[in-house]
């Protein structure tokens, strides 16, 4: 019996360690946006969304309550989600923000754990697009999107697993407004 209880204790300690490691990784996916607070006064339009903890739980419960097919799909896509943080700033003129502030965010994504998924650089509008993901084992534990252009900045930080394909499929449905914050000017042929 003592051997058995010792074995159980070891298993419990191991599980506790794994759980804490997973939570630490999930916490690591959280980016710090404090440096961008000074952009609010300069920007023409600002969108700031922080949804996590109890608010996110309430939103998940509301999705169940709405009892709609699309709502159920969204509920599935975000079932493991722990938080979403969004910042969008639109400016009237070019160069109204300091690109170093955005590069500081990009620096946070150079830490271990983050993997670059997409990297687009365009001289047109000084566009820089970065998409990073963080994985814990086979499970996605974070997504970060950083987009900077001459007149706009957009940052998205998702904590926890999320079905991106399903989310893209549901874009424009179920009161999800199709917000076209930046419309690219197609080159004329």
């Amino acid at each position, binding site marked *: 019996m003592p051997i058995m209880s010792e074995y159980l204790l070891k298993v419990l300690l191991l599980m506790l360690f794994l759980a804490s490691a997973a939570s630490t990784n999930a916490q690591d996916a959280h980016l710090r946006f404090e440096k961008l607070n000074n952009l609010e006064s300069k920007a023409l339009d600002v*969108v700031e*969304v922080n*949804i996590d903890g109890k*608010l*996110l739980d*309430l*939103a998940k*419960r*509301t*999705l169940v*309550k*709405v*009892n*709609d097919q699309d709502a159920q799909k*969204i509920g599935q896509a*975000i079932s493991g989600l722990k938080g*979403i*943080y*969004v910042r*969008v700033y639109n400016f009237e003129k070019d160069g109204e923000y300091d690109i170093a502030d955005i590069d500081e965010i990009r620096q946070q994504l150079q830490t271990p754990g983050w993997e670059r998924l*997409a990297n*687009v650089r365009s001289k047109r509008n000084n566009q820089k*697009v970065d*998409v990073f993901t963080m994985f814990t084992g086979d499970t996605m534990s974070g*997504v970060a*999107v950083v*987009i900077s252009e001459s007149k706009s900045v*957009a940052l*998205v930080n*998702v904590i926890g697993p999320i079905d*991106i394909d399903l*989310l*893209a499929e*549901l*874009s424009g449905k*179920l*009161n*999800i*407004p*199709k*917000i*076209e*914050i*930046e419309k*690219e000017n197609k080159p004329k042929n």
Partner: protein
Amino acid sequence: MNEDYLWNKTGADAEIEKLENQLRAFRYRKTAPPALPALPIKAPHQTARKSNRSLYAIAACAMVAMILLGAWLQFSISKTKIQTQSAEIVLSENEFSNSTGFIMPDSPDVTIKKTASSKQPPKSQVLSSKKSLAVIAFPTKAMANIHRADQQKNVMLTKEEKFAYDQLMLALSITSSKLKMVKDKAAGLENSQAFYENKQ
């Protein structure tokens, strides 16, 4: 007629003796009494009474069932009435706000879907009654139909729930639009690369 012969059978009377001889066939003979039946035979009127009693029991049960059904229908109709009235209040508040521009004080509940029409309360009552009867007649099919109808019912959300829902939808919308933009950009680059490779 000799009275002594008639009453005491003393002496003789030819006329009475002639009558006695004629009625000899009906003379009393002392024999054993008939045997009693082994089992009591049921009287036919008793069976009839029993069947009447069971009929009364069935009728009483049916009456109780009808009373219960009536009470249930009444309850469900009054419930529908309350729902319709609350929808009417919310709608009239919205109409008032839209027409005057005056914002009503915060109400505990906020509707996100407008379904119950305030102008047609009797229809919902009839629907409720029909629903109840349909459940009794065809339970499985009716329940499936009601479930489908319930899915399209009003969804009443509290102020906090609506706020949380809107925030989540906004965050998801921006996230999905940004990811879509990156995806389209990557696809565009791949296409142009393939185009130049083919050209070469």
